[in-house]
């Protein structure tokens, strides 16, 4: 069994190799299945095809990862979509981080402990098959949170990082069920002001252990950690983020602005290799996913058991033990233009930062568009795509040529509210719980507006 033999997809038609300014790179990742494009680009030789010699290094947590990209110990990394945006606007560590490549869509879930699930279940309608009707709304969780409150017990939930997609998804879901997830303010960055449910940070791989220890009663995290809870019999996933917001952008590949300016060709080559990896992951209707699962289950990548990873990577998702349902788009790496860095995706995250007070002051619509443009680099992406099409390594139809970087307005959210990225303030005002135009958090109260 020779592991990971180079599959030699060397395109003989390779056009002139790019003149690389830097060809030895160290890239960071967190042990989650959506780091797959990096592992595949390495194992399948896509990095090498571009003349890149890449070392992939797992990181302890999101903060360490970001700090190491900023200090230059890492040349780039698998990041949460919110991280480059937050770093650039200065929430947390301030640094200009950019992204030319969006890594995937969907892929997260919300899991609650067995006890909370038992209490929730009384409030969830059952279908004709005797199984809970999906998607499960947070309305079913509301009475549980109220009961905790009445007994004077804190309702603690885990999420992976203050600017993580998981934080915003969990908050969106809770708020849609009338549970307040708490505000941030410049003086108080715990994010628990006025909160009904107390959210705090736990690194993804430690989620199951923390849940088991009773420190938290639920969490929102990427795979394989929701399925791991089912396997270990310690919790029940109640909803996937696909059901909270259909085809939401999840991870991006982040680099410092400085890196992209200093090494433009290296940035292009990286983007090319990652696009090819994403394409490989989705081609022929996910035919390669089984092989991808084997690669990801190796200890140097995700390292969890293959069957746990396979669950979500191959299009099924297990909620309660035995309640397996098809979620074909649970992990999307390339379809639906998944890898193109849309400005509108950036703007949605910015609206959520504003909604929960991470962006303390009111900003006008133009600011949202400018910020998105300074962080997301679709031009680099399109240049890489053009080169791949020219070399015969990609199909022109797979890229959104001619787009202005904005997706059409969508109401594919669990509460059906429409999001139009060109009118962010109107969108913020249309959401039930959260800061509205002109409002700020002062002490523990909302003022203005």
């Amino acid at each position, binding site marked *: 069994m020779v592991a990971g033999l180079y599959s030699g997809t060397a395109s003989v038609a390779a056009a002139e190799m790019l003149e690389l300014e830097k060809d030895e790179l160290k890239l960071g990742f967190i*042990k989650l299945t959506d780091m797959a494009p990096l592992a595949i680009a390495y194992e399948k030789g896509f990095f090498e095809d571009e003349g890149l010699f890449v070392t992939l290094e*797992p*990181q302890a947590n999101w903060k360490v990862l970001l700090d190491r990209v900023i200090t230059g110990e890492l040349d780039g990394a698998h990041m949460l979509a919110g991280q480059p945006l937050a770093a650039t606007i200065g929430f947390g560590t301030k640094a200009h981080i950019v992204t030319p490549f969006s890594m995937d869509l969907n892929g997260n879930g919300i899991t609650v402990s067995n006890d909370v699930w038992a209490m929730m279940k009384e409030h969830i309608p059952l279908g004709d098959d005797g199984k809970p009707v999906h998607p499960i709304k947070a309305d079913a969780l509301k009475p549980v949170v109220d009961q905790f409150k009445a007994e004077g017990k804190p309702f603690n939930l885990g999420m992976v990082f203050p600017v993580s997609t998981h934080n915003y998804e969990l908050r969106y879901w809770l708020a849609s069920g009338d549970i307040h997830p708490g505000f941030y303010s410049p003086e108080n960055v715990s994010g628990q002001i006025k909160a009904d449910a107390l959210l705090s940070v736990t690194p993804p791989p430690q989620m199951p252990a923390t849940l088991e220890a009773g420190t938290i009663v639920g969490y929102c995290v990427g795979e394989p950690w929701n399925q791991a809870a089912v396997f270990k019999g310690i919790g029940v996933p109640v909803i996937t983020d696909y059901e909270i917001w259909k085809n939401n952008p999840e991870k991006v590949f982040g680099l410092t602005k400085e890196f992209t300016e200093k090494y433009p060709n290296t940035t292009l080559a990286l983007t090319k290799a990652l696009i090819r990896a994403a394409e490989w992951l989705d081609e022929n209707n996910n035919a390669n996913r089984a092989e991808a699962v084997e690669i990801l289950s190796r200890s140097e990548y995700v390292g969890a058991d293959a069957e746990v990873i396979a669950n979500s990577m191959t299009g099924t998702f297990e909620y309660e033990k035995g309640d397996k349902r098809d979620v074909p788009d649970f992990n999307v790496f390339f379809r639906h233009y998944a890898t193109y860095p849309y400005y509108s995706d950036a703007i949605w995250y910015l609206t959520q930062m504003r909604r929960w007070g991470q962006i303390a002051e009111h900003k006008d619509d133009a600011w949202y568009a400018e910020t998105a443009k300074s962080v997301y680099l679709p031009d680099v992406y399109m240049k890489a795509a053009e080169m791949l099409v020219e070399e015969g390594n990609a199909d022109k139809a797979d890229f959104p040529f001619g787009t202005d970087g904005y997706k059409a307005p969508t109401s594919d959210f669990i509460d059906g509210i429409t999001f139009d990225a060109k009118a962010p303030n109107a969108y913020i005002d249309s959401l039930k719980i959260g800061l509205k135009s002109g409002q700020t958090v002062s002490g523990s109260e909302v003022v203005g507006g």
Partner: protein
Amino acid sequence: MTQAITVADPRLARRERLFQRINRAAGWLNVLGLGWVTPILRIAAGDNVAEQMSEIRKALLVPLAGILFFLALWAVLAPKVQTSLGAIPGPTAVLAQANVLLKDHIAERRKADAFYARQDERNAKLVAEGKSGQVKHRIFTGKPTYLDQIATSLLTVGLGFAIATLVAVPLGIASGLSKTINGAINPLIQIFKPVSPLAWLPIVTMVVSALYVNPSDLLPKSLVISAVTVTLCSLWPTLINTALGVASIDKDLVNVGKVLQLSTATTIRKLVLPSALPLIFTGLRLSLGVGWMVLIAAEMLAQNPGLGKFVWDEFQNGSSDSLARIIVAVLTIGIIGFILDRVMYALQSAFTFSSNR
């Protein structure tokens, strides 16, 4: 009668010499933890078998029985503890994982060879096309295998221990010779000695990152950070023991030195060091033990390459093999710690003997 004693049978004399040699070796074998070899040698040399068998029982069979008993207990009890990662693995599962780790190492080396073959091919093609300017030689960027991690840990602890020795021995000699210096640094020692490595780590990380700006490939930043953390914790036993060893020199010797008007350097070289060496080595042995223990924790927390990171990564992986792999690592750490200790003990014995001669 008397003749028999004076004119010894040459065979007997040879045998006598052989036994003397065995006795001399016995001291060293004991130091190295191989005391059970001595009786076997004696039997081979023709000594009384029954007498030596009792020795063998004491030195070899009893420890072996202890180990076997432990293994049996482990094999019986482990499956009874169910964790969320499955049952605690028994000895066989751990052995299997040790094998897997070895196979991984071999597979990774194979991957590296394939990489170099591809690189040579590319370069040969470039040369043939007359583009020798574009020829590149790059190092293979695979994951560090288990054996690599062991090597990294040993290098780190070696570096940290070396720095600690270079700092602690001179400082210890100075504070042993002078009551003033001793008085000045004693409170500092008392305060810093109990501090856990994990408390030092953030500070060390920041300081090293600030000062060590251009890391070389041989000593990456992360390795230096772990090494300095080891230094800060393994410094104290050497420092205290050196000071004690120097302070407790025979007063007569010191007075002789004064009479002869020896320079300070000569005093230290000729008088202080020889008589303080046994205690200095006691300190070094303790330091290395502490350093090895601290290293694993530092690597775990700082995510610096090495065995500690291996353990943490496996814990994070949370696969059904993870626990067995972690136990492999625990046993490895223990065995390496034992070997390091024995090496230091051997050195210590060597110097103690020479000083007592």
